[in-house]
């Protein structure tokens, strides 16, 4: 029987303004696939519903299986999580959902805002496969502003590009990155010509993450990125734009969707998204994001 699990908190740190990284010790780590999520229970008894959070990474820490979550504080539940200290426990369900299908050689991973964390696990999983090299994993990260996070870690497993809607190169907050990497900020996609990139070889030497002002789509266009498959997670307008781009270019794309959830396991029908074909559960056109998803083929969903 499955049950509500209890994990011990190993460590928690702030990565950036309001963005936290939480490591949990749990055997569930051994089951987790990229694109799946955990549903975490707040301790406050008035907050009864679990909070879905994507699995950012799994690893062994001191010989024990562990899951890492990276989340943004947006309300009472996540605010509570951010106060949890090592040694305290947290209850959760999971891993839940289907996850990303992995097979293609050259992949473009697109993460927007708090949709970036699951891309780390996907990139790491790809790097662990023999046939794919770091160059075959292109990662585009989209941020609101200079509050970046996870850039240096993503750079270990793939070639990373950045986009920020409001950009000021001196103000990047990803502390690890500031120490390890050099930026080649591109002020705006439209100005790419005046800030030429010297190509991948040069980048490897410096380890720089080139940034463009604008959205992830602006970055894809500015850096002329292409691949055999696209994986994306982020806000709905971004997913819409990625879907259109993928259809236009004829690249198969997998989108990870977000919807308000109650049960997290497929019971309540709260979290549905509109689909092109009838769903297997209710025979209408409403798939459950928590069960049939959160990852869907781009042409499968109506955004």
């Amino acid at each position, binding site marked *: 029987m499955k049950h509500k699990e209890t994990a011990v908190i190993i460590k928690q740190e702030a990565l950036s303004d309001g963005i936290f990284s939480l490591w949990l010790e749990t055997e569930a780590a051994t089951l987790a696939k990229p694109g799946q999520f955990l549903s975490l229970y707040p301790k406050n008894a008035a907050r*009864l519903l*679990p909070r879905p959070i994507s699995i950012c990474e799994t690893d062994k820490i001191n010989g024990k299986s562990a899951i890492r979550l990276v989340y943004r504080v947006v309300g009472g539940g996540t605010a509570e999580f951010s106060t949890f200290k090592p040694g305290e426990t947290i209850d959760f369900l999971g891993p839940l959902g289907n996850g990303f299908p992995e097979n293609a050689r050259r992949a473009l991973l697109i993460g927007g805002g708090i949709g970036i964390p699951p891309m780390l696990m996907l990139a790491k999983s790809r790097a662990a496969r023999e046939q794919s090299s770091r160059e075959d994993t292109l990662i585009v990260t989209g941020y609101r502003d200079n509050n970046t996070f996870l850039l240096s870690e993503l750079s270990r497993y793939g070639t990373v590009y950045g986009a920020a809607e409001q950009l000021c190169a001196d103000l990047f907050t990803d502390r690890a990155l500031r120490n390890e990497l050099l930026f080649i900020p591109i002020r705006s996609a439209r100005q790419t010509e005046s800030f030429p990139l010297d190509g991948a070889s040069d980048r490897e030497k410096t380890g720089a993450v080139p940034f463009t002002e604008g959205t992830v789509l602006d970055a894809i266009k500015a850096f002329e990125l292409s691949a055999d498959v696209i994986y994306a997670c982020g806000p709905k307008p971004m997913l819409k734009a990625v879907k259109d781009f993928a259809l236009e270019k004829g690249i198969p794309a997998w989108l990870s969707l977000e919807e308000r959830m109650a049960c997290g*396991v497929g*019971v309540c*029908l709260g979290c549905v998204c509109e689909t092109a074909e009838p769903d297997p559960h209710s025979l*209408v056109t*409403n798939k459950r994001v928590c069960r049939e998803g959160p990852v869907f083929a781009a042409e499968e969903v109506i955004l």
Partner: protein
Amino acid sequence: MNLSVNIAGVTLKNPVITASGTFGSGEEYAEYQDLNGLGAVTTKGVSLTPWMGNKTPRVTEVYGGMLNAIGLQNPGIDTFITRDLPFLSQYDTRVIVNVCGKTTEEYLAVVERLSDTAADLLEINVSCPNVKEGAIAFGQNRDALFAITKEIKKKARQPIIMKLSPNVTNIAEMAKACEAAGADAISLINTITAMKIDIYKRSFVLANKTGGLSGPAIKPVAVRMVYECAQAVKLPIIGMGGIATAEDALEFIMAGASAVAVGMIHFHDPNRATQIVQDLIQYMNTYHVEDINELTGCVR
């Protein structure tokens, strides 16, 4: 020790049931609890044809509970009978099928389709606040409730449980109408119509604007309503609304319920109904209760 209860001639091995819409057709939570340990499983509402349900957001949390406006999304009676009912029939538990419709004819058609199936009891949902037509309209008017109960009773092969809405001025009057029309049992409460506003977006949180409130937040209201109905009618009562523990279940039983249904708390703990059965047994041991039925309506 006796834990079994009788609802309209159907014996349940214990008084703990799952509440409609909070347990699907059992499949998902069967991975988390042994359905054989439950008195009965009540299914999600089933209509004549597949229903789309409402736009999202359909659910949101509120203090001590949640709002839902699912709008009765379901695959329709045909798929329910060929796929979902056989799944539940594998288990040694009773099956209560929750029936919904937009017109009297639709309710009757579903009830008739269920007549030669493994369904043990039918729960008639005349109290869903989240669909525009039918449903709650039947449950908020005494005469309409009487009429539909009478019609369904004529056609139903299984005993019928009328599920009452709390969104009425006098719930005991509704219970009396069901009894007069020949209902075999009543269940209550369905969700309480409610609303949540997003003050940053200055809009409604739910796409449907309103939703049904459920969870511990509604329990005191539900206990009071079960008590009022128990005083007004002789029908067996299935009590529900915010039950989270065996202590909560006992409040409903003492107020007059023969059985109880455990609902949205499953979203907080997918094993909760089974846990409540175990905790009830412990209570009976500790307080030397020989028969759970002794407690039904013991508070007057």
